[in-house]
């Protein structure tokens, strides 16, 4: 019987919520990795049992976890305990927690610098993995977006990670951290063009490669950001998230720091589609599984007031690809609600009717089994939710 598996990353561990296709009765497992921050976990589209999770802590750093049984059990995919760390010919074996930027052969220092808040040029320093994006076709290939902003990938199931360093050549010396750090938080793979990848960085903008990471270009034409010296600069925009429908990969939707944007030419240019939203600040944006022009956002009051306008938690839906928006409120709190919904904390399933899920900084995960028309809490009292993904099970 078909169903869904909702993967929830929180400030204090992972929770897995499962239901059949009715999406009415839920089983909750967790916390997995109790006490650790789980910025993101996601399942492989090529193998529903293969999950990857980013586990981190301010004390003990970054851990990559993997499950091969749909989240029942987890392990670190590097060299198992007790085995030698090198092969018989002296080569290092898998170290799944190791994210090391490409370095200068002469100095050993990470290549290039970026801008810091104070305007100084500082070297890249690895902090954590914000987002894991498994390959659309190979369960052992997975991309990791990290802070300080860079893109890594693994082709051995997360045992080892290599940077795709050419990204930092796309004017990386001008990138600077947003309030949450300088993070690569969005990775979108193009199903029609296997070598094409879109990524987004706060606060640098959107970038695209058409050759699997050998070369990258900023894709920010049409964005306008008041908070930077040149509002139309080629890089420096605080993009919060981008989303694509797989059937129409040249159309992208973006929730920027302010403004909801749309591109009809694979990111070459953008135009605003905020329309009648009560505020165009927010974090997540997502696309209906079966209707490429139906999109969802969660408006947030402002960059200094990270909660819904008027204390009313409302998802907004556009069935026209933007500009014309309707508030979805049934089942959501419409008074005294001051939570936030973070950029990776919304997901859609592929059932019919399409289901939606989002998590809040107040620890609620809401679900809708009718394309957003009505909502109900699946869980109410988790730690602050950092990410929500969903797998549609056959």
């Amino acid at each position, binding site marked *: 019987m078909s169903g869904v598996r909702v993967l929830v990353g929180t400030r204090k561990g992972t929770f897995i919520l499962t239901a059949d296709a009715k999406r009415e009765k839920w089983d909750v497992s967790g916390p997995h990795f109790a006490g650790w921050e789980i910025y993101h976990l996601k399942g492989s589209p090529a193998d529903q049992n293969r999950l990857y999770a980013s586990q981190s802590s301010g*004390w003990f750093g970054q851990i990559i976890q993997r499950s091969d049984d749909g989240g029942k059990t987890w392990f670190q995919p590097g060299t198992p305990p007790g085995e*030698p760390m090198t092969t018989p010919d002296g080569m290092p074996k898998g170290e799944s927690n190791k994210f090391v930027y490409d370095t200068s052969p002469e100095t050993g220092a990470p290549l290039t610098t970026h801008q810091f808040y104070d305007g100084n040029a500082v070297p890249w320093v690895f902090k954590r993995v914000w987002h894991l994006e498994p390959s659309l076709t190979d369960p052992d290939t997975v991309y990791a977006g990290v802070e300080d902003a860079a893109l890594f990938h693994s082709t051995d199931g997360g045992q080892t990670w290599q940077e795709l360093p050419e990204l930092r050549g796309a004017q990386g010396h001008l990138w600077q951290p947003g309030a949450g750090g300088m993070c690569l938080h969005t990775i979108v793979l193009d199903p029609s063009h296997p070598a094409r990848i879109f990524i987004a960085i706060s606060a640098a903008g959107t970038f695209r490669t058409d050759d699997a990471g050998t070369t990258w270009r900023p894709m920010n034409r049409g964005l306008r950001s008041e908070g930077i010296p040149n509002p139309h600069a080629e890089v420096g925009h605080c993009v919060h998230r981008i989303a694509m429908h797989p059937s129409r990969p040249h159309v992208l939707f973006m929730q920027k720091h302010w403004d909801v944007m749309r591109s009809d030419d694979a990111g070459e240019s953008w135009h605003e589609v905020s329309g009648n939203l009560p505020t165009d600040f927010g974090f997540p944006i997502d696309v209906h599984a079966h209707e490429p022009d139906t999109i969802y956002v969660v408006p947030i009051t402002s960059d200094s007031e990270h909660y819904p306008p008027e204390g009313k938690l409302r998802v907004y839906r556009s069935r026209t690809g933007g500009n014309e928006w309707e508030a979805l409120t049934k089942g959501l709190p419409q008074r005294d609600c001051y939570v936030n919904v973070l950029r990776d904390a919304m997901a859609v399933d592929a059932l019919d009717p399409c289901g939606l899920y989002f998590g809040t900084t107040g620890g609620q995960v809401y679900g809708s089994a009718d394309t957003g028309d009505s909502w109900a809490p699946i869980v109410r009292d988790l730690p602050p939710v950092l990410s929500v993904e969903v797998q549609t099970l056959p």
Partner: protein
Amino acid sequence: MIRVVLPTHLRTLARVDGEVKLDVEGPVTQRAVLDALEARYPMLRGTVRDYVTHRRRAFVRFFACEQDLSHASPDAPLPDAVATGAEPLLIVGAMAGG
């Protein structure tokens, strides 16, 4: 035999209960003990000290024999009581936060 006490989260990662016992060849220093710890438990690499610089992570502390050894040179000999196994080396997640 060197005895090491790990913080709860690292015991969970290493899948061990109680103290860890390690054989260390040569002088018993922080570096030698951490090298032996990471060789035995590869999943702990990067959690106690940085992968590249091998500097202690900021919120990790090393205690032994009622002394804070966190700021000692990684190549300084650890106390004799640790080297002989009479006392454990404590790896501690520092109290931090509000």
